């Protein structure tokens, strides 16, 4: 028997999808760290087909058939919130949050995000070059925004940023992620208890008043939802901002085009999302036998959607390897597809637009202060990006 390719594989560099699956498109078998064989879906149409069909392809993370793409996924089985549920259970929880994530609501946050971004750039300028844009810029923007939205005190940010990293990093061990989850849960449970006594005006306060006090959610359920929003809300977007800076700097022609016409900012952000595929790898398992691109998928089989590769499927995107700020294509699967498509996507777009647009406007001489090849890149199987981003201007 020939050895199957492994999943995940490290990216050669943070922009290039791992190359090991290209010969097997659009669907093939791969081997996970624990030896389990699952289907890797690398075609764009096939990825959408799976993500659009939650009855056949389940997101139930507690279920033993749900594939653990890395050791930390085993700990995630103990956290139960809507990202790991199927409809109709999923729909009930997601709808409790929708009113806070509409296009109108996220657009209303733009002036606040702008003030925040300007303040951080003031500090970077005052300190003078060199600055590390990860801790000084990319991380605080989404971290402060999600804290204010939820009503979590930002003064605790060092704690939950550290714990979140242990949850979303590819190389995190089982023990480490279990401990990080436990600490985050204890923190949020304590915060929710305090908020019940002294309500504030964040989304958590609204959920306590409308869902917990009415009995629609238990406190434990709210803790798991809060955990999802807090973790999903900052590490992904932080990675997208930092890697977005690198991508633009490495494509000077595209950066110049964007500078000469700032109206391109929304399409540039969309293209960055497609090209970078920050959250690479969404898992599902088949609940029944099914046909997928001519393969017979059996009930219980695990599936992984390889987002970076699906985003570079030539059938869906002409010249898929080219980075083009005016491409104007929004059908990439960087936010997923189907009922679980990212609830925070419009917040992420607003943060990326304002952060990247303002940074390149205010620091026109921005450039890397270290060779590209020496930037430490994040491990395979987690949120993709760079750990450090020293720049000068």
């Amino acid at each position, binding site marked *: 028997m020939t050895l199957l390719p492994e999943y995940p594989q490290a990216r050669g560099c943070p922009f290039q999808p791992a190359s090991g699956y290209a010969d097997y498109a659009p669907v093939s078998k791969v081997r996970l760290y624990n030896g389990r064989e699952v289907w890797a879906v690398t075609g764009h149409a096939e990825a959408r087909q799976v*993500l*659009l069909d939650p009855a056949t392809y389940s997101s139930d993370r507690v279920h033993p058939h749900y594939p653990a793409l890395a050791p930390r996924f085993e700990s995630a089985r103990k956290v139960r919130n809507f990202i790991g549920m199927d409809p109709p259970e999923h*729909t009930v929880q*997601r*709808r409790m*949050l*929708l*009113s*806070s*994530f*509409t*296009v*109108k609501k996220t657009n209303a946050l733009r002036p606040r995000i702008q003030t925040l971004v300007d303040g951080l750039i003031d500090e970077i300028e005052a300190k003078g070059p060199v600055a590390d844009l990860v801790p000084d810029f990319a991380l605080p923007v989404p971290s402060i925004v999600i804290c204010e939205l939820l009503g979590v005190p930002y003064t605790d940010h060092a704690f939950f940023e550290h714990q979140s990293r242990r949850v979303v990093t590819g190389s995190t061990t089982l023990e480490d992620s279990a401990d990080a989850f436990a600490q985050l849960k204890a923190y949020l449970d304590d915060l929710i208890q305090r908020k019940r006594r002294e309500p504030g005006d964040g989304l958590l306060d609204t959920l306590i008043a409308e869902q917990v006090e009415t009995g629609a959610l238990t406190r434990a359920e709210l803790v798991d939802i809060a955990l999802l929003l807090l973790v999903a809300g900052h590490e992904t977007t932080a990675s997208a901002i930092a890697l977005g800076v690198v991508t633009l700097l490495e494509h000077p022609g595209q950066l110049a085009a964007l500078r000469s016409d700032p109206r391109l900012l929304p399409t540039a952000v969309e293209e960055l999302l497609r090209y970078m595929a920050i959250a690479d790898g969404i898992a599902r398992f088949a609940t029944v036998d099914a046909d997928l691109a001519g393969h017979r998928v059996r009930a219980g089989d695990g599936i992984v959607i390889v987002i970076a590769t699906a985003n570079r499927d030539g059938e869906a995107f002409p010249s898929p390897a080219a980075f083009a700020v005016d491409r104007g294509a*929004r*059908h990439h699967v960087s*936010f*997923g*597809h*189907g*009922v679980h*498509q*990212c*609830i925070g*996507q*419009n917040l992420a777009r607003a943060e990326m637009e304002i952060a990247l647009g303002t940074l390149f406007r205010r620091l026109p001489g921005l450039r890397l202060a270290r060779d590209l090849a020496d930037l430490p890149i994040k491990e395979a199987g987690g949120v993709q990006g760079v750990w450090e981003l020293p720049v000068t201007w």
Partner: protein
Amino acid sequence: MRISADQGRCLGAGQCVLSAPDRFDQSELGLVEVLDPEVPEGDEKRFRDILDLCPSQALSLEA
């Protein structure tokens, strides 16, 4: 052709509002609202592409 929206399927991703803010809005609950359902002749392709972006298949075109 007319656009028809199924609020029962909508999960509030807002793709439709981003694509055509003059045609779509979201209610207080975050669910899709069609502001103007008429699709002018010749614009069917554009609207099919917009509908294709909806992640929960809540939108359709009807004769």
